[in-house]
């Protein structure tokens, strides 16, 4: 909380060094020029998602348009912006959760390792097995802690020893020591922060490659939030994480790259459509953004 937003933590710096992308101006340029330049610089295996010209409609309403961005492996990518800017909508395109909303329609391409997730041959159920999701409000099932974690492995008919899977997931989610003696007890008896870590454990029990987090800390107190943020730093070594957050300090603390979205009001129809304003290294977004709107937002002068 007290950390200045423009100073990257040691972990962040180390990580950037290791990926060899440390030149802010270069990254900023690459984004401004479009995705092609950047794609040549980094090996394509490091790009998990490549979003091209994404528009999402809800019925006649255009919720967000012209989104282009790339998500890299083992990084935390944060989506920030005011309410209604489409950041959650975009996040839900990565595991096709938007399919569940009647009237939702997606245009453009969301490439996952080069495969378009919106290709008609893609089964959204399979997508969601590989790309986990953690929601705004902790939503454990009203079952035991054990059964919550075992839910995904059981769905996919895993032949692994479930006890091992449960223990590993809970350890990874830094929850094992707190719950190891009450695995058969209801998950509903845990605190909010524990429930959210349980949901993270449930998501990673099936060993997805990516974890999507939709404002995972907005219902938690600062201490629980800090624990989740620590956990995200740990998980980054094995997973690629995308997080939507209302909390700019959180984006600054945890993420490697930040996408800033905002709303545009259509002067004719008065409809509000979300747009991606700027996508760059987090350090750059919070210290020297290219776009004036980004700067106004991150400095609190939202206009």
């Amino acid at each position: 909380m007290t950390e200045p937003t423009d100073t990257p933590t040691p972990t962040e710096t180390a990580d950037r060094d290791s990926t060899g992308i440390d030149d802010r101006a270069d990254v900023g340029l690459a984004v401004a020029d479009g995705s092609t330049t950047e794609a040549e610089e980094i090996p394509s295996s490091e790009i998990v998602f490549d979003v091209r010209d994404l528009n999402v409609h809800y019925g006649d309403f255009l919720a967000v348009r012209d989104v282009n961005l790339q998500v890299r492996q083992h990084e935390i990518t944060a989506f920030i912006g005011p309410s209604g800017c489409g950041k959650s909508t975009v996040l839900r395109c990565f595991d096709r959760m938007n399919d569940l909303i009647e009237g939702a329609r997606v245009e453009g391409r969301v490439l996952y390792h080069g495969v378009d997730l919106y290709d008609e041959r893609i089964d959204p159920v399979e997508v969601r097995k590989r790309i986990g999701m953690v929601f705004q409000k902790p939503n454990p099932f009203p079952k035991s802690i054990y059964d919550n974690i075992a839910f995904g492995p059981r769905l996919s008919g895993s032949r692994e020893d479930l006890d091992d899977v449960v223990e590993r997931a809970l350890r990874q989610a830094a929850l094992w020591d707190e719950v190891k003696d009450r695995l058969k007890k209801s998950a509903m008896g845990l605190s909010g922060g524990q429930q959210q870590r349980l949901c993270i454990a449930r998501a990673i029990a099936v060993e997805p490659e990516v974890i999507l987090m939709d404002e995972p800390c907005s219902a938690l107190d600062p201490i629980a939030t800090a624990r989740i943020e620590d956990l995200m730093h740990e998980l980054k070594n094995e997973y690629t994480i995308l997080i939507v957050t209302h909390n700019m300090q959180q984006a600054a603390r945890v993420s490697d790259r930040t996408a800033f979205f905002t709303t545009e009001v259509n002067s004719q129809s008065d409809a509000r459509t979300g747009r991606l304003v700027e996508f760059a290294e987090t350090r750059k977004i919070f210290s020297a953004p290219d776009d004036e709107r980004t700067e106004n937002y991150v400095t609190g002068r939202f206009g």
Partner: protein
Amino acid sequence: MAISSADHAIAPGDTPGGDGMSLFGSGSRRRGDRLFRSVALGAGLVVLAVLALIAASTTREAWPAFRSEGLSFITSSTWNPAEGRFGALAFIYGTVLSSVLALLLSVPVSLGIALYANEAAPSRIRRPVIYVMDLLAAIPSVVYGLWGIIVLAPFLGPNVYAPIDRAVGGWPIIGWFLHGTSGRSFMTAGIILAIMITPIITSLSREVIATVPAAQREAAYGMGATRWEMIRTAVLPWGRGGIVGAVMLGLGRAMGETIAVALVIGSQPGQITTHLFEAGDSMAAVIVNQFGEASGTHRAALVGLGVVLFIVTILVNVSARSIVSRFDRRARGV
């Protein structure tokens, strides 16, 4: 509430600001609270009082029959008003059997419709489905009964029951049940009852299913559940208590249903058989068929049937409730 606790906690003069006025709420508002509480309490007590009065006065009316028959009122199946023998076992059996048949037929269909309307149907189909189900619930039971006796029973006897009886009636186990050729029978009563209770069970369980939080559905979908897996793991466990409640209300209506059953069950007193395609009788049907010409002990015995029906209904409800709550406690791991 906040006001009254505040004036217990803070003595006059301690109040920030000194005058203490704002913390001591006006008495009139508390009078309103008290009035509301007594009205609510009174309404609750009236329900209990009505129940107790009904139980007491019917038991008194039925007393001559209970006294002369003793326990054999519910253990004997000989019902012969001319000889003054009143054993209700066959009627209890008929009520339970026809209701259980109705549930077996109705619950899968009702849950299917409820899940379809809530989870699968596109919104332009959902509305009409719900509307039609609500309409079905509004049809008076005598209409179902008349349809049953004029259309359904004459059709089922020769065209459905007889062929089934010929085909499997001699088999072991299955033949014990699928035997007989009477159009007016336990089975026909069960079918009519199933049609009558389906709208209630559908409508109530649909409302229960609609209360399953979106977060629970998303949790299951987010883990890569298919629609059916989501229903099985998120919707049904969450709604189980309410769905069982809906089924119990349906069962209550089936057991108490009088006129429709009286028309189609066949009015065969004393019949206790596993043969579903044979005529029988139920408690409510006997009451409505015989009450007009009954007097003395016969009349008391019919009221006694009402008391037994009342008790059976309560027992079914109470045991169902306790099953549900035990089930839920275990599912939640508390």
